[in-house]
């Protein structure tokens, strides 16, 4: 088991290097550091010296992938790519273009992101699984058909509408909750969190419910369900004792991959509701074209995704007796 995890972690390294290659290629091939400097310095202060200084300060004065002026290993190590991406592996995210330390910023903003993401995830999962079971229990009836049509309807509405509509109805018209904002004190925070969480759950309900319903229906068609009914079990007993257990395997292992990425927060929800999490941090960075932050977030995001993949495999061994890791 330990050896397995170790090997998987080792395999993640070439992938993260690949991710960095993609981002660096995107950022620097199309936009030279000179362009970035020009943009960050603003129109007025652009002089060749200022650009040089800007680049030197931030370590952008080296070649990108291959330094031909150096010798030996330094050909590779003395480059922007090497210096910038190695520090990422060490957990050093560097400073953003406005000079703030990215690592600290991430640590500070993680809390608010999780405060939204974890309740959304848990409530959403519980609700969609129960709803899909409900539809499956009434399969073939008008209740099921209406439910499926409703799901498709919900899927077809952009999440922007849910957010805008939710804010407009509950915060502006009914004035039940504040429109936006955040408070780290948990006693007050729920006040700010309840609407974004509700909106996020509702926005995701359609597609997951429908997907889980299909999974459960697929299970119901299997032979062992017929065996269970032949034993004399009631429909509900068959559903909850046999089908649920089997159907939950793909559902649980399917959602495990997103658990680590919960840290990244939700871009839309956070920015609409003014929550100082990593999602809004990312959006701000995109708007300000702060490449250092975007690069750090890409690295963090892909690292968490790979962690999610490993966790998925581990979760299989927990919920499915048939799978053993070698």
């Amino acid at each position, binding site marked *: 088991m330990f050896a397995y995890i170790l090997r998987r972690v080792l395999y993640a390294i070439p*992938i993260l290097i690949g991710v960095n290659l993609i981002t660096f290629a995107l950022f620097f091939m199309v936009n030279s550091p000179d*362009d970035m400097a020009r943009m960050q310095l603003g129109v007025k202060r652009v002089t060749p010296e200022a650009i040089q200084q800007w680049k030197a300060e931030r370590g952008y004065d080296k070649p990108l992938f291959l330094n031909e002026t150096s010798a030996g290993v330094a050909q590779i190590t003395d480059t922007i790519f090497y210096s910038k991406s190695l520090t990422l592996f060490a957990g050093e995210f560097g400073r953003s273009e406005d000079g703030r330390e990215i690592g600290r910023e991430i640590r500070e903003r993680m809390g608010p992101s999780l405060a939204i993401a974890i309740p959304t995830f848990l409530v959403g999962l519980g609700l969609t699984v129960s709803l899909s079971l409900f539809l499956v229990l009434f399969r073939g009836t008008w209740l099921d058909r209406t439910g499926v049509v409703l799901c498709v309807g919900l*899927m*077809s509405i952009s999440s*922007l509408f849910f957010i*805008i509509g939710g804010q*407009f109805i509950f915060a502006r018209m009914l004035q039940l909750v504040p429109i936006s904002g955040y408070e780290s004190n948990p006693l007050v925070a729920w006040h700010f969190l309840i609407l974004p969480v509700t909106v996020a759950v509702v926005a995701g309900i359609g597609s997951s419910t429908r997907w889980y319903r299909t999974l459960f229906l697929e299970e119901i068609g299997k032979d062992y369900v017929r065996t269970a009914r032949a034993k004399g079990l009631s429909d509900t007993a068959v559903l909850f004792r046999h089908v649920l257990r089997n159907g939950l395997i793909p559902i649980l292992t399917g959602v495990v991959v997103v658990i680590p990425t919960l840290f990244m927060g939700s871009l839309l929800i956070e920015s609409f509701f003014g929550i100082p999490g990593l999602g809004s941090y990312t959006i701000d960075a995109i708007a300000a074209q702060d490449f250092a932050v*975007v690069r750090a977030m890409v690295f963090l995001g892909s690292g968490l995704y790979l962690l999610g993949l490993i966790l998925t495999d581990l979760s299989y061994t927990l919920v499915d007796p048939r799978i053993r890791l070698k």
Partner: protein
Amino acid sequence: MTIHALFSTLSQSLWVWLATDVLLWLLFVLFLFSVVVIVRSPLQRAVWQKVFRQRLAVVSTVLLAIAACFALLDSIHLREPLPRLTPEASVRYSVEVNSVLDLILTDLRKNHEKTYSAPLAVNLAALEPVTVSMPDGAVEVRREAPRLKVAGSIFPPGPVNDTTYWLDVLQRVSFGALGGALLFALLWLGCLMARRVLTSNPQSNRVAWRWVGLTLGVVFITGGVFTGLSTNFHVFGTDKVGQDVLYQVLKSLRTALVIGLVPTLVTLPLGIALGLSAGYFRGKVDDVIQYIYTTVSAVPGVLLIAASVLSIQVMIDNHPEWFATAVERGDIRLLALCIILGMTSWTGIARLLRGEALKMREYDYVQAARAFGVGAGQILLRHVLPNVFPIILITLVMEFSSLVLAEAVLSYIGIGVDPTMFSFGLMINNARMELSRDPVVWWSLTAAFLFMVILVLAANLLADAVRDALDPRSEGQS
């Protein structure tokens, strides 16, 4: 604009083929081609008849086809000639690039108000100081909503009498509806005649034609009503700069379709080629391809798109000399966005097809072909690809709706389409702040919402129907 004027403009203008125009028409040609293939193959025809026996599928297809008509009309661009200064001077063309749809909708496009106005309103939605001379000769400055420039201009100045207003609305609605119904009746009659001539055996025709007619009828009558009302009003009101919202919504259809369809031109070749070869060849090929798609899917999609769009925007900004007009500049960004969306979304289909190919390479008929020494390329092309085609198709239709939805989010973040263009995302983004105004400006958002939901819902319902009919796994359930 009359039809005659339209054609004379068309013949004199400089045609501009934007990149996305070409791609959209190319997709259309591909679509026609596959229709021909389907109609000629009995196996395919039976499957599609199964799809189109479902009412919702038929309704959705008709709605999507109408959206496609708008998008295609909006994809023939041209620059109108400028009036010649001297008779012998060479012809010069306007820098304004318009599409055929723009020309058809000239009235909608050009009838600007000053700022916000509600649907069917004759007054502005904003208060302005108005000087009123009182009967006693005193002059008073009041804040009130002035009359609109264009809408309701046939009414006499001053406050409009409720009865006259509603009578006028009613008249235009009924004339519009009647016109729409008439046009529809003519068209339907023509279709019926054509059908009688073309199909010898109406029994074999299992498509729910009645629902095609019903949907078309509703659409034509709605269109007629809209046209009727547009002669004197703004059906969906106007936005901040006074532009007609109906015009914006219709223009947004093309952007939505481009975003929903063009990325598949990237997704399909990549996904099919890489997915099938990973599954079929296994071994080292599989290792490399899996490495690539794990890497690509590890990068958070939004950030990858953001990074790419920003980079391309900088490139566009640095090279203004590449583009003759603003429309072309916006179009290049749109194209880039499509390519990037395609590059980030091929992994899903590749993974799916890899699994299928892994399974299918063990199938007896593939083994039988191998026993004849048929090459891998031939096997993939003749045996594997036709049998995974339903899966590809289902993924495509489902991808369409998620891409259209993604456009809205990306435009909101500021990494979507060029702000000078029209799109649902931009409309929502602009309308978002208007909800906090007093009185609430709800119409832009509502119009965008309505059209977007109809478009995406139609695509989702069609995807469902196609899956029910094509997916071998769904056959067992009933």
